[in-house]
């Protein structure tokens, strides 16, 4: 069992958990992820690592309560545990100490973005961030980013908070206003990463993305997470999850993520059944 030490709601359906997992905490770096199973009959799902504390042997995960397994996870309380928690998986993000970086976090994508920007900031890079979501309730970690980001921009689709509009509109406005960035790190829904990459490509602005395809084991064994990057098939779990945003075949990725849509709808309904 991996004990749950802390748990809190970041908004209506995004939660944060601190879990004791010394083997993960020992070597994990920004950009890496874990796979967990909530109980003995559970499925394996990947989640990115938001924070870690090597001394305490703890790892923080942030997840949106969206499907069967995250719902089960959400039912767990502090003091209880989850049966399996394995990692760190994937390659750590290669962070270069450049002059200035802007991060873009879409929805719960702000969680894996956080440790990357934090580390960059510690390396002396000047960091800005755009946090985007459908509405105010879905914006997370704003206060935490503001501790080290020079500028925190917020956009919402419905204008309930920050600027009304998409993260891409914000980025475009900033660059057109003369802001100079050496690199963009965009993490969020695939469609967001696609349009950020389309926007930055003509500017020749290096853009890193973090992908979250369907996977089973997370160690390279199943190959379910294959993505086409620069015309070559890569396994997101061992070659990624970070890739050059300008090289990723996003349409294929979106299609592959929808492979079990009908089954997911089915198991979500089961999850909703009052127990």
């Amino acid at each position, binding site marked *: 069992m991996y004990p749950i030490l802390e748990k809190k709601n970041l908004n209506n359906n995004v939660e944060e958990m601190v879990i004791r997992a010394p083997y993960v905490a020992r070597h994990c770096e920004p950009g890496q992820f874990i796979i967990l*199973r909530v109980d003995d009959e559970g499925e394996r799902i990947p989640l990115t690592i938001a924070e870690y504390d090597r001394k305490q042997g703890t790892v923080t995960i942030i997840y949106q309560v969206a499907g069967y397994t995250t719902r089960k996870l959400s039912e767990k309380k502090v003091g209880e545990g989850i049966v399996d*928690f394995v990692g760190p998986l994937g390659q750590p993000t290669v962070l270069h100490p450049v002059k200035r970086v802007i991060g873009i976090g879409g929805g719960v994508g702000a969680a894996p973005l956080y440790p990357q920007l934090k580390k960059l900031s510690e390396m002396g890079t000047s960091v800005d961030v755009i946090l985007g979501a459908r509405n105010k309730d879905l914006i997370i970690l704003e206060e935490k980013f503001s501790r080290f980001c020079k500028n925190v921009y917020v956009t919402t689709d419905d204008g309930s908070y920050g600027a009304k509009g998409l993260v891409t509109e914000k980025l475009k406005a900033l660059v057109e206003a003369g802001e100079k960035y050496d690199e963009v790190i965009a993490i969020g829904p695939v469609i967001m990463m696609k349009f950020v990459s389309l926007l930055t490509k003509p500017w020749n602005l290096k853009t890193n993305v973090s992908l979250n395809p369907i996977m089973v*084991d997370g160690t*390279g064994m*199943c190959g379910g997470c294959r993505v*086409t990057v620069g015309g070559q098939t890569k396994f997101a779990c061992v070659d990624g999850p970070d890739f050059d945003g300008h090289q990723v075949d996003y349409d*294929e990725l979106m*299609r592959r993520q929808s492979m079990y849509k009908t089954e997911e709808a*089915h198991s979500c309904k*089961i999850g909703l059944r009052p127990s």
Partner: protein
Amino acid sequence: MSPKKVPIPEQKPEERIKNFREVALGYTPEQAMEEATRCLQCKTRPCVAGCPVNVKIPEFINKVAEGDFDEAARILVSENCLPAVCGRVCPQETQCEILCVRGKKGEPVAIGRLERFVADYAMEHMSQEIPKIKKNGIKVAIAGGGPAGLTCAGELARMGYDVTIFEALHALGGVLMYGIPEFRLPKRLVAREIANALNLGVKIEKNVIIGKSIKVDELFAEDFRAVFIGCGAGLPSFMKIEGENLNGVYSANEFLTRANLMKAYDFPNSPTPIKVGKRVAVIGGGNVAMDAARTAKRLGAEEVYIVYRRSEAELPARAEEVHHAKEEGIIFRLLRNPVKILGKDGWVTGMECVEMELGEPDESGRRRPVVKKGSNFSFPVETVVVAIGGTPNPLIRQTTPGLETQKWGGIIVDEATMKTSKEGVYAGGDIVTGAATVILAMGAGKKAARAIHEALQKKTS
């Protein structure tokens, strides 16, 4: 005496394709005793030499013939910690049985079936006899809880070592749990046999990936005196043809892991889903391909094809598996090679193949398949399973300085001791040989255990 083996009762093909229960049902005590009397008890014991873990075959068979199944089980377990597994999945026909003197005239003794009978009997009727072990307190780490690692761990624990198995997945067993399907190897038996093997005091750390969660050099720093690496062949290979990333294309690893380990056949009772179309093509001709094809059939596919580029004679799968697959209605499309997977709206709709013919033998001694020009044809399928093997997992190699590997990624060892180029590190199983058999991995684990013992005794004495 009968020139033929006593036949083993099986579920009828038309029944078994509707369930995941075991195909072969096993001998009754009478059948086992009858078969055991076919053993000539010859002095030369060629069968024992053919067994990678050197099971005392004539001795245990003699006890079966006498009806002393308890003693037969003791003899069997003394050399093989997973007999119920081996009795089911070992290729006896190329190991022990092929050397059986009776095989010169008629069929060899059914060693595999007898092993299975004795193991099953022991599981049902006997409580495990745990030997008194004098602990020596010396720590040994095992990376990977598959057949190689389990055997190595069991052997070392018996000699008194303080053994810890580090397993990346949430269950021990490796390929026995995620790869080989329930209908060929019931998971209940695997779990039970693993528990027996580890009852000797082996510690288990699940969800730990050597090379990621902890590195080999750190294990030494934590006072482990030797490390055995048995982490398998790992990464699935794909054909590198157009359409391979379409929805509906699986590696055999993923297809079988979903079905076996994650119990996707029981969806939605199990939350892990699997997609199987009306028509399924499995690419490859080995045991894994047969397992995938027969699993697809049981998951409801109406037509299941095996697409293999050579002819029937070259199929690497065991004859028994091919026979079972045929009985279950699997359609063999031999001398065919896929060149493209066809799709519409992102989903698989068919496969384009070329016909092949056999040319001169290649380095492997098998006749090389050559494309027949202009023979392209296509047929409709909704699911494709790629079962053409894999390459070793690079995690340990990448994070262990001083560990020498082959070009293809396999760890290089001294075959007599399974010792690697790095002091104190041993390796065995698929990570050394590439995809091979359960029993070869077990043999390697056993050999490594002996070599580790010898090396550590020298050091500590």
